[in-house]
């Protein structure tokens, strides 16, 4: 057809969505675009004011926006494909949340893989907190997701978690999936004029659970009786103290195979030491193990636990005790960890 429509062409495709958070000068962030198509659904509640507005720091965003990532029917059905594009302009802050675990339903044909892809662009001085509920692939599910974060000039702040459970444990499911893949990548984009758009990989965390590997073992045996695996990726000056908190607590974990000979008198514990001791006991009771590492400007926390609740408690407890996320993003940031 040669006659052109007076309206812009619809860019919405099934499963596609986009979020654009921009800044209305001097310091009011606005969600200038939130669009989505079935089966994806985005819900943006009213933004909340910054919990503790620090007047001494100029140009802090006055509002924190939140977007819930949902799917119709509360899960991803075989063959679904979701594509979400998120852009954070300079000096904005966004919380992404889910409402309950992301359920992946079984597929009749193991070659039909459901997909979910999210690309996030983070401008310098902006920050993303993405602490969702875990992904829960049911027995015979085939799912592949990727979260690709692009930072400009290695700047930008992010605190994102990606975790997966063994299925519906109440129904006896224990990693009975066909296939599960989750990819988290952080790239830096060079915006200087001579290297316009040159990308470099900063971090790749790629989990692949499939039949390959020549182990001759069931997937459940490969998982060493853990039902939850997760990675927390932290980067940027806004989350500096949170990163340090994880590193310090990892350092303070009791030595594996060490013994208390009882020859050192236990001094009166400070409040923090008491919290630590309690948390460590809880970790032991919940069969939770974790590690933290400082690599390439990130703090990477890996954790595994026997039950979902153990991991949830651990994350919530660690983030709350340190407190900076709650201060600069509000209680909503950890809604999925409660």
């Amino acid at each position, binding site marked *: 057809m040669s006659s052109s429509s007076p309206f812009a062409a619809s860019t919405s495709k099934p499963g596609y969505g986009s979020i654009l958070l921009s800044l209305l000068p001097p310091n009011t962030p606005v969600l200038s675009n939130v669009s989505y198509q079935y089966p994806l659904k985005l819900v943006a509640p009213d933004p909340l004011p910054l919990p503790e507005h620090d007047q001494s720091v100029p140009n802090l965003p006055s509002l924190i926006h939140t977007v819930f990532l949902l799917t119709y029917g509360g899960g991803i059905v075989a063959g679904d494909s979701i594509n979400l594009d998120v852009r954070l302009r300079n000096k904005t802050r966004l919380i992404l949340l889910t409402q309950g675990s992301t359920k992946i339903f079984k597929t009749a044909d193991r070659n039909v893989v459901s997909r979910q892809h999210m690309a996030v662009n983070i401008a310098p001085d902006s920050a993303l907190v993405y602490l969702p509920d875990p992904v829960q692939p049911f027995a015979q599910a085939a799912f592949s997701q990727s979260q690709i974060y692009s930072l400009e000039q290695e700047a930008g702040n992010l605190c994102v978690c990606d975790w997966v459970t063994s299925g519906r444990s109440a129904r006896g499911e224990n990693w009975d999936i066909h296939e599960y893949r989750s990819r988290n990548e952080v790239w830096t984009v060079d915006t200087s004029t001579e290297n316009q758009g040159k990308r470099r990989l900063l971090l790749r965390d790629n*989990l692949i659970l499939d039949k390959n590997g020549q182990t001759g073992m069931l997937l459940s045996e490969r*998982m060493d009786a853990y039902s939850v695996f997760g990675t927390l990726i932290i980067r940027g000056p806004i989350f500096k103290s949170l990163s340090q908190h994880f590193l310090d607590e990892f350092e303070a974990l009791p030595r594996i195979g060490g013994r208390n000979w009882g020859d050192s008198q236990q001094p009166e514990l400070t409040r923090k030491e008491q919290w630590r001791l309690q948390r460590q006991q809880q970790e032991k009771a919940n069969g939770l193990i974790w590690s933290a590492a400082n690599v390439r400007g990130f703090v990477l926390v890996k954790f595994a636990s026997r039950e979902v609740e153990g991991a949830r408690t651990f994350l919530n407890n660690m983030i709350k005790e340190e407190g900076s996320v709650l201060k600069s993003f509000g209680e909503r940031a950890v809604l999925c960890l409660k």
Partner: protein
Amino acid sequence: MITTNGDQKSLEDEIFDLERRLQDAKARLNYSKSVVASSTPANDAALHALFLLSDSALPLGSFAFSSGLESYLAHHKPSPPSASQLSSFHTFLRLSLCTLASTALPYVLAGYRHPEDVEALDNDFDASTPCTVARRASVAQGRALLTVWDRSFKAQHSSTTTAASIHNGTDNRQQTAVDAITSFSTTLRTSSHLNVHLAPLWGLVSNILSVPLNDAAYLFLFSHARTVISAAVRASVLGPYQAQAVLASTELKSRIRGLVEEGWDRNIEDAGQSVPVMDLWVGRHEKLYSRIFNS
């Protein structure tokens, strides 16, 4: 066309005779091939290089690393403490090979196939190694291999390839590989971006030494198995003869063969962790009360 009985008979005879001669010729060809093949200079060079790389005395310091075995054993204390840890060891060996094939093997293959990309491969492998302990082990062995190249292999290879490349086109590719490792080694002295991980460099060095890719990949996995098994001997999990039996087993052979086949076409973008708990065992090695290994 109608043929008489006599004609048919003579044709059959002729066919029989031709077939016999064909078989005879084939047999002679095979025989001469096997004699010649074992002594062509190219094959000799590849075999010689394979022996060099497979030598457990190759100074990479691999003996200092258990690749998570020590931590794994500490996380799986048997009860009673005196019980054998042999069966947990076998589980670990399988998982460890599975992890190595899914995370590092694609980089070995890529380093061999695309020597010019070695810097990018090194960066991407570094970005994909999530814990300090594993990265330390990989970088220590990678740097050691680069030193071995610089001090021991380089002189030999730069001279032979330049001489040969004049009249042999296939050596151009090898020259690219030599150039790649030379510039990599030079950049290392000036840049803080490079890490020198073992996997991509293993591929690159195997390429230069003319080890066939299949063998290079096989040897990479085999050396890892040998290192883990030798660590198990020193951790008193199994005895030296048992260790040789594990190494010699058809099971290990077919497992490594299978892993190489599985990973043959996998891109580095699709490299990833297939045993998530391995990251925790390796990462928590630092938390062991007593340690005899560096990883």
